[in-house]
């Protein structure tokens, strides 16, 4: 942050320098008064905050450009300093020429985020407003964008201030008990303290419920395809993007690094990643690719595991199994013996995962039954395909799937599982579940004449993969963002820390039998709460916030 210490006047082109445009907006801040730059303008004594049409004059008085400018005198400006905004003709050369003019006369080019930093310094913005601005300018999802705006308006900050207020009350009531218990009476004092404690608990618990570990990944939501080499990830990647991006071949290990493409669904911008095949390897370069893949997988909020059942065993999948997988797709479903091959994966036990078969020939998926299944599914007979007439399949199978309330009424689940016996027989006993797709016909026009190749253990009718998976992604994204999660990592860390200290404090809280220790805990709470509110901000925090800014904000 030291590079910001210099208070000299700054200038930048706020609309970027990347190409010729009709208009470019230049911003100047921190000059002593308009008179100091007056010689460059044909308009003299401009009325503050009004637009003025003016000629821009070079040092020798020659005309450089015709511009519109507004003058915002301190302190009523973005930075709290004297600010000038110029709209000039957006030719890159013209912009460069104007920047040079001012830089030759006491200005320097602004560093990234410097305008906002000055606004923060001059108390025009709070730290969380700055963070909100960052979110607003750099987020990829509508919800993060809204939270950026919320922060900029100071609404989340109000929640934090309220928490801080609750903390101050808590601290004050403890001090009251220690220093003034005779004046207010021991019992009244204790009651006030307990009330304050409960209020703080309520506020921190509410904030804490908005912090979940995955919310950070919602900021720039990543979707990842992972699996062993040659599992068909790249083929599926291209399918989801609807064009050929990854190099596809049948030689294992083609995608050595990862590739990524933006994928907009609704108003959310996802990034889809195709990662290097994960396997044990002695090839250093390949291992490096795998490590990078792990990093991406870790940051992703939605994970698709591709398995080629003909080339893989459960043992080979161990490295992938450390992650929570959203769906598992078995490729090469068109090959003979597919149904038998996938049986060896019965013991894959992802609790929330659904399994699908997929063949690139038909570009059709089937949901398949594999591994532990719910007892109710055993008795429900043929399952109606939930393929709707118009568009993607709802990811809910709740009607016939997960354990309904009837079961929970009847006590624990296990006995029923034992009654119905082991799981494997399901596939054999009930045999293939006939999809009733004849009524509606498959959705995909592709191959509709020949009909999809249907695996024996399919659970329901054919599924069109693209809109189906898009639906699953969106569904999970919406679910995760439903409780208005807090996106900013610094806030998350602070809230977690406060919550942790508070939990300790509650444990130590033995009917106030040691007020000294209690006050020491509250001081720790205070330190972290101040950090959250932004009253104390280590330079490193500021640095990390400002490093994300584009020049001109």
């Amino acid at each position, binding site marked *: 942050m030291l590079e910001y210490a210099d208070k000299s006047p700054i200038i930048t082109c706020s609309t970027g320098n990347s190409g010729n445009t009709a208009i470019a907006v230049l911003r100047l801040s921190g000059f002593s008064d308009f008179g100091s730059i007056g010689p460059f303008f044909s308009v003299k004594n401009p009325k503050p905050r009004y637009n003025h049409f003016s000629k821009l004059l070079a040092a020798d008085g020659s005309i450089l450009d015709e511009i519109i400018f507004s003058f915002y005198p301190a302190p009523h400006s973005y930075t709290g300093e004297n600010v000038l905004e110029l709209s000039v003709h957006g030719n890159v050369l013209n912009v460069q020429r104007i920047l040079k003019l001012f830089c030759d006369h006491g200005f320097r080019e602004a560093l990234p985020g410097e305008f906002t930093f000055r606004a923060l310094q001059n108390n025009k913005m709070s730290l969380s407003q700055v963070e909100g601005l960052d979110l607003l300018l750099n987020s990829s999802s509508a919800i993060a964008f809204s939270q950026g705006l919320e922060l900029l308006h100071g609404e989340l900050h109000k929640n934090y201030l309220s928490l801080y207020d609750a903390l101050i009350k808590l601290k004050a009531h403890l001090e009251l008990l*220690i*220093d003034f218990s005779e004046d207010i009476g021991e019992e009244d004092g204790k009651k006030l303290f307990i009330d304050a404690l409960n209020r703080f608990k309520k506020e921190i618990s509410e904030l804490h419920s908005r912090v979940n570990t995955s919310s950070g990944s919602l900021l720039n939501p990543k979707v990842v395809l992972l699996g062993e080499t040659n599992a068909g990830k790249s083929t599926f990647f291209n399918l989801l993007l609807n064009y050929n991006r990854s190099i596809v071949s049948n030689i294992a290990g083609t995608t050595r690094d990862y590739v990524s493409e933006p994928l907009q669904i609704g108003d959310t911008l996802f990034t889809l990643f195709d990662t290097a095949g994960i396997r044990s390897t002695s090839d250093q370069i390949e291992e490096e690719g795998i490590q990078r893949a792990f990093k991406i997988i870790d940051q992703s909020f939605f994970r698709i595991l591709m398995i080629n059942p003909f080339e893989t065993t459960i043992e080979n999948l161990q490295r992938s199994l450390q992650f929570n997988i959203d769906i598992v797709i078995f490729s090469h479903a068109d090959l003979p013996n597919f149904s038998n091959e996938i049986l060896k994966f019965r013991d894959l036990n992802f609790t929330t995962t659904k399994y699908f078969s997929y063949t690139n020939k038909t570009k059709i998926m089937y949901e398949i039954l594999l591994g532990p299944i719910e007892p109710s599914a055993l008795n429900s007979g043929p399952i109606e395909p939930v393929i709707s007439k118009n568009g993607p399949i709802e990811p809910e199978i709740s009607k016939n799937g997960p354990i309904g309330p009837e079961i929970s009424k009847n006590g624990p689940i296990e006995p029923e599982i034992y009654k119905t016996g082991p799981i494997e027989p399901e596939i054999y006993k009930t045999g293939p579940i006939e999809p009733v797709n004849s009524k509606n016909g498959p959705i995909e026009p592709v191959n509709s004449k020949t009909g999809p190749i249907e695996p024996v253990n399919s659970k329901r009718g054919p599924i069109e993969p693209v809109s189906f998976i898009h639906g699953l992604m969106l569904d999970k994204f919406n679910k995760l963002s439903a409780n208005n999660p807090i996106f900013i990592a610094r806030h998350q860390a602070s809230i977690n820390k406060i919550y942790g200290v508070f939990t300790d404090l509650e444990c130590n809280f033995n009917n*106030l*039998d040691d*007020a*000294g*220790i209690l006050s*020491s805990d509250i*001081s720790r709470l205070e330190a972290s709460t101040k950090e959250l509110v932004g009253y104390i901000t280590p330079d490193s925090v500021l640095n990390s916030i400002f490093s994300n800014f584009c020049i001109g904000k």
Partner: protein
Amino acid sequence: MENFDIAIIGGGHAGTEATWIASQFGLKVLLLTSPDSGIASAPCNPAIGGVGKGQVVRELDALGGLMGRLADMSGIQFRILNESKGYAVQSTRAQIDKDLYSINAEEVLSKVTNLNIVRDMVLGIEKENDSFVIKTKKSGVFQSKKLIVTTGTFLNGKLHTGEEQVAGGRVGCEKSVALSELLSMVKVLPKRFKTGTPPRLNIATIDFTKMEEQASDPAARNFHLMNTYSNREVRQISCYLTKTNSDTLGVIRQNKERSPIFNGQIAGVGPRYCPSIEDKAFRYQEKDVHHVFVEPEGLESNSVYPNGCSTSLPKDVQETFIRSIEGLENAEILVHGYAVEYDVVDTSELSLTFEYKNVPGLYFAGQVNGTSGYEEAAGQGFIAGSNAALSFLGKEPLVLDRRESYIGVMVEDLVSNLRDEPYRLFTARSENRLYIREDNTALRMLPYRRQFGLNSDLDLFLEDFLEQYDLLSQIIEERYFYKTSDEDRNYFIERGYGPLESNITLKELIKRPDLDPVKVLEFETTTKGLRFNFDVIRTVAIGSKYEGYINLKERE
């Protein structure tokens, strides 16, 4: 014209400490005090100590101050405050016999041979070269190298009781001139401060049977380190607790227009933490019940102090509201309550030794610095007095670290922050409350006391204390209880020490959350035939208990 090394103007609690400690260095000291009141008199509540303040008294005591000894000699009821809230926040308070306290102070000071006490009014002070020339009303002119001003509320003081206004610093005392007249070069705060006191009641007219009795606690430790733990020097008596009611507050609310603090007659700012009863009436409209502690002002005195009823209301209103309180129905007022407004020195002009930065050799201490409380005054007096002496002798100044003492906290707060109300010490003002406790003052103050280079009984006592402390601290880390020893395991069960599942030291035992560290360590030393000063045992035990938290604080 008689010459002195150090002169002190004002014989209150600040002036008494300043005089006492300055004279310990063998310098020629002059105390100029009011002819109308005794030395170290207590014009407000009859008590020494309290939460935070008890720590100050003990710090002073361990530094060689006088207040703790005087309180022990004159204490008629002792209590431990916050006893149920853990050792870190406990404090001692003693009700004192006011007359006895003053008599004792005079007697102690009268024995100091290098001290002159002059009872007269000061008319003017001038700085001549490197000396101060002090003109008095009847006793002529004095000259002194160092001057300590501890004039309390007397500078430009004005008393209010209802519509009545009298110039003066205290009821029954002659007024002093304004500070600006005494010392034209000193800056006072633009805003005057205000404080108040309740009416005094005739003890014979009070029905104590309607009140809750609060007896003296025989377990409370005396203030002075070298005194026996809790043997009292004078007879102990009780205080009593009663409460205000809706009638009390009703009368006050009806007379808002006649209250000097609400009708604009008093412009000075009073302390929020020591509100007058009219403050309570108007600030807490919904609350009618407030505590009133009925405190005798002495063993022989007929005067009683109703703590919680500070007021400047007119006399007739005072009588009505006092008599609405249970037990005080027939109370006779001996002296009416009043408020006093006074000038306050701008303490941001003072250094950490309380020397006025622009006038070398001039020191200020006590209420004139905008504080409230006898203990705060005494603490400042000690700092000013010792530093004036150290400076005279060309020695290093005494500056107490705020992490190590409440006095240090107060000094730093006073010189670094501007206040808009009288300053009182709370434990909350310290960032290091778990360390600056009452039990370990000897340990905390010893290094500062050494700085004086004096060689009194106290110094020998402190050095011995430290030796014992170091020894016991070592013992508790070396004494082990073994899980494999049946004897130790049975012993733990028998003593209720909890399970013995691994080998632990005595120190680890003391730190167990459910045990009282002092009781455990006391038992473990005496049963092993180890003889330690009980204060050493307390300091070691309580210090071990909080060690982890104190270290945690230091890390942060």
